[in-house]
């Protein structure tokens, strides 16, 4: 019990100490967007007369006619009241856009992380158990292969092969086949929503859409995960307590899984947290390639058209998720490793 409460206390403290970072992100993004040389008002003023008047109108509508410090204050005030502004690209409030798109990104990232972990951990364990053998070298090579192809290339190639040539994958047009009707929105995660609605055909359709993009993303993170698994596994296999376990005649499975692997998973957990956050921010290209209606591609479009609000909202969202993920990892770590709570 005391362990839980210390973990909770630690988590609370971590959260409080990450607030300044969030604030920093907020201000930095705001300023960065203001440095962008593009004037969104001009970009969106596309009428045939596109005169000064129309541009001024949009500027006023966006609040760009005010001095930057005032804009910043207003922005902070808006955020305080939960208003992230409105996107010019989609015409919707940013908050609504993010809300509707975030589950897509999260679902994709979670699936990718799951695939990556399910691949990386066995690979890393295998490599560590046969350190220096061909298995080890092969794993290393496979992992290195994964990280050396840009995601947009692997994504396009996967589409070309599995959709266009082989016809195995469904059309890469988003989260679910357009002719499949959507389940009632409960969580926004289609796999969950379909399962809740009991619509297994729909579930299959959504899963099929998810496989290729998730694999594309997973490909890129298998390497760091496998690498850390291997290293951690080597360390724990070489540790004194594994030697103890062996000296006591524990069955090999127990030695490898309960003693070595469980300890080795601790650093993997930390890395998985980092990987998750970076993936979420870095899946811009994957979302683009697979027409995935996620938050990253949304931010990219907004960025290219200097649409401030969505980019700012997106960055804030990502930073918050980063904080939440760190917290989660912290809590999990605190539960998994009794030593942490003492420090």
């Amino acid at each position, binding site marked *: 019990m005391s362990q839980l409460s210390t973990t909770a206390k630690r988590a609370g403290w971590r959260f409080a100490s990450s607030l300044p970072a969030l604030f920093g992100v907020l201000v930095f993004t705001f300023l960065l967007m203001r440095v962008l040389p593009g004037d969104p008002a001009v970009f969106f003023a596309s009428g045939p007369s596109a005169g000064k008047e129309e541009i001024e109108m949009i500027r006023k509508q966006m609040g760009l006619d005010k001095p930057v410090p005032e804009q910043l204050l207003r922005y902070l005030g808006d955020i305080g009241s939960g208003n992230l502004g409105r996107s010019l690209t989609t015409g919707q409030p940013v908050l609504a856009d993010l809300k509707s798109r975030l589950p897509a990104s999260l679902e994709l990232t979670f699936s990718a992380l799951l695939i990556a972990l399910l691949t990386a951990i066995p690979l890393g364990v295998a490599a560590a158990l046969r350190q220096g053998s061909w298995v080890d070298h092969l794993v290393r090579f496979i992992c290195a292969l994964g990280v050396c192809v840009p995601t947009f290339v692997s994504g396009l190639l996967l589409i070309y092969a599995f959709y266009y040539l082989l016809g195995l994958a469904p059309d890469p047009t988003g989260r679910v086949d357009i002719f499949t009707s959507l389940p009632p929105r409960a969580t926004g995660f289609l796999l969950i929503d379909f399962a809740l609605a009991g619509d297994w055909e729909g579930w299959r359709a959504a899963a099929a859409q998810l496989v290729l993009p998730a694999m594309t993303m997973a490909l890129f993170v298998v390497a760091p995960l496998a690498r850390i698994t291997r290293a951690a596994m080597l360390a724990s296999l070489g540790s004194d307590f594994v030697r103890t376990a062996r000296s006591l005649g524990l069955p090999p499975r127990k030695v490898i899984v309960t003693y070595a692997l469980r300890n080795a998973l601790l650093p993997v957990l930390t890395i998985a947290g980092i990987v998750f956050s970076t993936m979420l921010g870095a899946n811009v*290209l994957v979302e683009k390639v697979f027409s995935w209606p996620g938050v990253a591609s949304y931010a990219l479009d907004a960025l290219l058209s200097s649409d401030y609000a969505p980019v700012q909202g997106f960055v804030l969202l990502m930073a918050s998720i980063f904080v939440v993920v760190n917290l989660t990892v912290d809590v999990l770590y605190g539960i998994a490793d009794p030593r942490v709570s003492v420090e």
Partner: protein
Amino acid sequence: MTSSTLRHTVWILRGNPVTAVAAAGAFILCVLAVIGPWIVPFDPIASDVANALQPPSAKYWAGTDQLGRDVFSRLIVAARLDLAIAASAVSLSFVLGAVVGALCGYTGGRLDRYVGRFVDVLMAFPLFVLAMAMVAALGNRVENIVIATAIINLPFYIRFARAEVNVRRNAGWVEAARASGDSHVSVVLRFLLPNVLPAMAVQVSLNLGWAILNAAGLSFIGLGVSAPTPEWGIMVAEGARFISTGKWWLVAFPGLALMLTVLCFNLLGDGLRDILDPRMRT
């Protein structure tokens, strides 16, 4: 590098052919980067629209692109720019990160806290989007791509150097240096940093590949190096447009070049880790 280290390296490489191949590959790449422009069969920039989009042949080993330029020549010449971008971005973040991180790790205290906050802020950013925003803000010139890549990389180096220095700050030889009359700054710069560098070299090698990919990703969304300069990322990005029409060589060869280079650096980094890992020195 002492002869024993050299011998150790040779021993590692012999037992580790993959690393040996990677090292050879990286060496060849560097050579190509230097002499590339003088050995290519065609001018990598001169267009020849009449011969556009030719598949690979005896004349054009890797086919030609939309403007009839020889893909093979462009690939070779691009090595220099790509390596230069990666190397300068990585060395920039490496130098800055190592010094700042080492100072933080050694002194702790207020500097550490401030830098820690800064690093936290940077880490909380979705990094690729941050790079995009910076390139978009500064303009998509080579130096800005380098700067953006360096900045998003910086937190990792700072943290790494900080951690590495932190574990050594109470080592006997550090205290001995203090007792020998070294100031804190001198301890950091002359004692700690040199000891941390080998471990960071691994990071650098792994990072080089990543930096190339990052630049390629920026190219893909249109924020990369401007045409007609040959650069792998932009070649892949341009080639990607032709995948659907079966002009595979436009994406396959630059993709392969990118892949092999990154592969080289990654395997080399892995190998370096083994060479420098004292636990491997049995």
